[in-house]
C-alpha cells in the first residue's frame, strides 16, 4: 500500500466572545499536499529519479468541501500542453467569488503527490478549474471529492495520545491500498 504524510499548517485566529468581549486565540489547521504535474503519456509507475523539478511541484490545500481542484494560472500555464481540455466544455467559465468575477477553464490534469519525507504517490487524474490570469484567483487546492481521491484512496488520521495532542500537529496520511508490490 502506497501512502504519504499530509502536511499541516496552523494559524491562530482571534475570536471574540459576543457576550463578554473576551478575545481568545484559536488555532485553525489546514492539511496541505505537495503535488507534481506528470505528463499524461507517462507510465503509471513514473517518478522523479534524483530531484524534484520545482517548476512542476506546488502545494495545495486538501479541501474537504470541493469536487474540483483549483490551479492558479501561473502554476498550470507552463504545462498547458499536458492538460486535457475537453472540447465539449466552454473555454471560459465564470464564477463569482466574494463579489469578484473569476474566469477559468476546466482541464483534466495528471498529478502525483509527494511528502516531505520523500514518499511518492503515483499519478492520478483530477479535474481542475484552471484559473485564467487574475491576482485574486483562489490559491491551489485539491478537492477531496475529485477523481484524485477515487480508486480506494483514503485519508487516515493517526491516533494520538492526549499528551501528543497538546504537543504535536494533527497527523494525517493519504493511503492508496490499490498499489500493491
Amino acid at each position, binding site marked *: 500500500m502506497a501512502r504519504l504524510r499530509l502536511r499541516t499548517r*496552523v494559524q491562530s485566529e482571534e475570536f471574540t466572545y459576543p457576550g463578554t468581549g473576551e478575545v481568545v486565540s484559536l488555532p485553525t489547521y*489546514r492539511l496541505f499536499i505537495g503535488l507534481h504535474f506528470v505528463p499524461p503519456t507517462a507510465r*503509471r*509507475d513514473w517518478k522523479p529519479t534524483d*530531484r524534484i523539478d520545482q517548476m512542476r511541484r506546488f502545494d495545495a490545500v486538501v479541501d474537504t468541501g470541493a469536487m474540483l481542484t483549483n490551479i492558479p494560472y501561473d502554476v498550470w500555464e507552463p504545462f498547458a500542453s499536458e492538460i486535457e481540455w475537453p472540447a465539449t466544455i466552454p473555454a471560459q467559465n465564470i464564477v463569482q467569488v466574494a463579489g469578484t468575477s473569476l474566469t477559468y477553464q476546466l482541464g483534466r490534469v495528471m498529478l502525483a503527490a*509527494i511528502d516531505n519525507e520523500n514518499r511518492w504517490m503515483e499519478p492520478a487524474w483530477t479535474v481542475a478549474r484552471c484559473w485564467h490570469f487574475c491576482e485574486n484567483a483562489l490559491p491551489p487546492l485539491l478537492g477531496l471529492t475529485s477523481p484524485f481521491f477515487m480508486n480506494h484512496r483514503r485519508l487516515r488520521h*493517526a491516533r494520538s495520545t492526549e499528551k501528543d495532542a497538546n504537543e504535536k500537529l494533527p497527523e494525517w496520511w493519504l493511503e492508496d491500498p490499490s498499489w500493491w*508490490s
Partner: protein
Amino acid sequence: MSNQLTSNSTNRTSAEGAVPRNGIDSPGADEIVLDLDDEGIAAQADVAWIDDEFNKGNFANYRGEYIAVVGKRVLGHDKSLRALRENVVRTMGFPLGRIVTSFIDHPVH
C-alpha cells in the same frame, strides 16, 4: 497495463527511517520512497522549512503572496508566481527547477 503495476524492488524502498511517530500501522516495503540526490534533498528540506516557519507565524507578512525559498532563505515574495520566479532567476541565478515556491494563505475566515 497490469505489468506497469508490477513492483520492481529497485524502485521501492522500505520506510526505514521514516516510521511514523505515533503508532500508525506501517505498510513498510510498499511505500514508494524517492532516492533523491543532495540537491533534491536540499529542496525537500526547504519545503519542510517553509511549513515550520509558517507554523511559527513567521510568514504573516507574506499573506496572499507566493514566496521563493532556496537554502532555507526567503529570496523573494510576490503575488505573481511567474514574476517571482523570473526575479529570483535573474537576480540570484538559481535554476528554475531548484526554486521552492509556496503560497502563503490568509487565515481561515
